[in-house]
């Protein structure tokens, strides 16, 4: 686990207005009940870490929030808009919700700068020059402005993930979702990505982050959510969660990941 330097104050900048509401959400993959009765409220500015064993439905949960996956029962309300099969609502929500994937998913046929400027130009209709200016600013924020003209294939994993974060930020999202952003990275690259995420947390971004980086959870999260078998088993403020887990399954999980 990497060491973390920047130290945001847990619990700052939460201003109460709801960013995400999940009410009695269920989801099935065919016969398989993958999400069971999920209830989750996220206020704007809140930073939430989701953890749990493999196959517990963490990815599925956050992918429901920008409707990369469809839920079958219950309500999901993001930024005041309910997710239904209405395409207009889906696109509206996707504009406001950024997402980073485990495998970065940069567009390999476009340069780094083009990767960043593409969505602002085509979705937000920002003029090209302006979009590229913004893109450069974000590249500076993730500390790789010198890579702007390269292609994704020429960058290291850590650099690619930082580009992916910058790409989402260029859309000026209200909410950021991270699905195991560091688990495909070599240890020495994890820290550079986490540093960027910590800085982002400092700006008051609403963040939902699936990760097993417990150091990150302790420094940044307002709340840690533990999932197992498609259910939210336990939910607590980070220090309590790690020092004083309540549920047996949480204890087992924590003992397993802290063992190595």
């Amino acid at each position: 686990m990497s060491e973390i330097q920047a130290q945001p104050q847990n619990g700052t900048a939460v201003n109460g207005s709801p960013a995400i509401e999940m009410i009695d959400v269920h989801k099935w993959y065919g016969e398989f009940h993958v999400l069971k009765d999920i209830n989750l409220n996220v206020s704007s500015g809140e930073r939430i870490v989701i953890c749990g064993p493999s196959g517990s439905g963490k990815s599925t949960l956050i992918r429901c929030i920008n409707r990369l996956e469809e839920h079958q029962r219950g309500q999901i309300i993001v930024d005041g808009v309910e997710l239904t099969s209405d395409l207009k609502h889906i696109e509206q929500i996707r504009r406001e919700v950024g997402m980073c994937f485990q495998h970065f998913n940069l567009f390999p046929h476009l340069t780094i700068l083009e990767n960043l400027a593409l969505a602002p130009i085509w979705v937000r209709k920002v003029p090209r020059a302006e979009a590229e200016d913004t893109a450069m600013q974000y590249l500076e924020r993730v500390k790789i402005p010198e890579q702007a003209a390269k292609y994704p294939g020429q960058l290291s994993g850590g650099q690619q993930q930082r580009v992916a974060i910058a790409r989402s930020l260029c859309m000026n999202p209200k909410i950021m979702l991270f699905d195991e952003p560091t688990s495909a990275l070599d240890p020495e690259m994890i820290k550079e990505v986490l540093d960027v995420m910590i800085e982002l947390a400092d700006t008051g971004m609403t963040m939902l982050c699936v990760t097993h980086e417990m150091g990150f959870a302790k420094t940044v999260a307002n709340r840690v959510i533990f999932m197992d078998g498609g259910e939210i088993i336990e939910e607590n403020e980070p220090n309590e969660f790690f020092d004083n887990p309540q549920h047996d399954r949480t204890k087992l999980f924590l003992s397993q990941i802290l063992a190595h």
Partner: protein
Amino acid sequence: MSIINHSTSPDLPPPVTEVGVIGWMRHNLFSSPLNFALTLVGAYLIFTFFIPAFDWAIWSANFTGKDQSACTGGGACWVFIADRLNFFVYGFFPDAEYWRVNIVFILLAALLIPQFIEAFPYKMWLGWALLVGLPIVSYFLLIGGSFGIVHVETEKWGGIMLTLVLSFVGIVAALPIGIVLALGRRSNMPVIRGICIGFIELWRGVPLISVLFMASVMLPLFLPEGLNFNKLLRALIGIVMFQSAYMAEVIRGGLQAIPKGQYEAADALGLGYWKSMGLIILPQALKLVIPGIVNTFIALFKDTTLVLIIGLLDILASVQASIIDPAWSDVATEGYVFAAFVFWIFCFGMSRYSQALERKLHTGHKR
């Protein structure tokens, strides 16, 4: 104990067996028993086939003259090709109107050649002019009947010009239709998917030759009396339908090779279906299948010869019509070699272009 070598070793020349003609031969011709055998087979072929062929085509051939009597060398009688060249290029297009075809040829060359030159500016615009502008201009120039130029019926079109018209229209139309069909076949909407699958499987399931027969013989039977549209147009529609079905399957292969993460990243950015296809998925998918697309283009180009069975006079048909001319005897080989050569030039050009395009679009990514 350490060993330190204090003397500097001078650079020695490599042994003669490694460099020069002998070295080259050792490495490339006689490096193994199999290679040795292949070299001997190659040498045998050169002596028995290529040298006589070369002799026939160049050494003993006759190039200048007016008629059969000029062919005395015992080799190829290229005088025949020179004599009938206008027919091979323009078909029955009226002599006085050749300039119109020539303008189209020149435009085609002027727009095509820059695509082969690495650093040429405005390639994008020239590309659009080639794909959209040229067909429109050519239509008015070749058909005529407007802007004060006389009308030339398509029955008089022929030769290389007709071959190029058929294949160019085929290529320009089959690619976009193929893209739409491939996207439709992967659509979530069952009706659209069904229509596309039906269309593709229908056209892929019949030979082009029967498509052309249908277009020229059967279609008029179903059409109402008096509505009898152009034979060339019917052949073109047949070719385009047939080839776009093939194109669709090539492109579908490319779409399937794009990782799911690319679709998801595009969705997550809010790009929507058409933008995500147009900006993210298709550029990558088409790049992946450039060899397959060009392969289809080359097949299309050569398949245009089949129109001769419905009485259109493409390059091959005009050669066939000429070799039976009683003024010339025994010129079939020359005619067919010429036709083959014309095809080879164009197909080779397409193949080279696709290789250059692949190199250019390679952005060094690994998946």
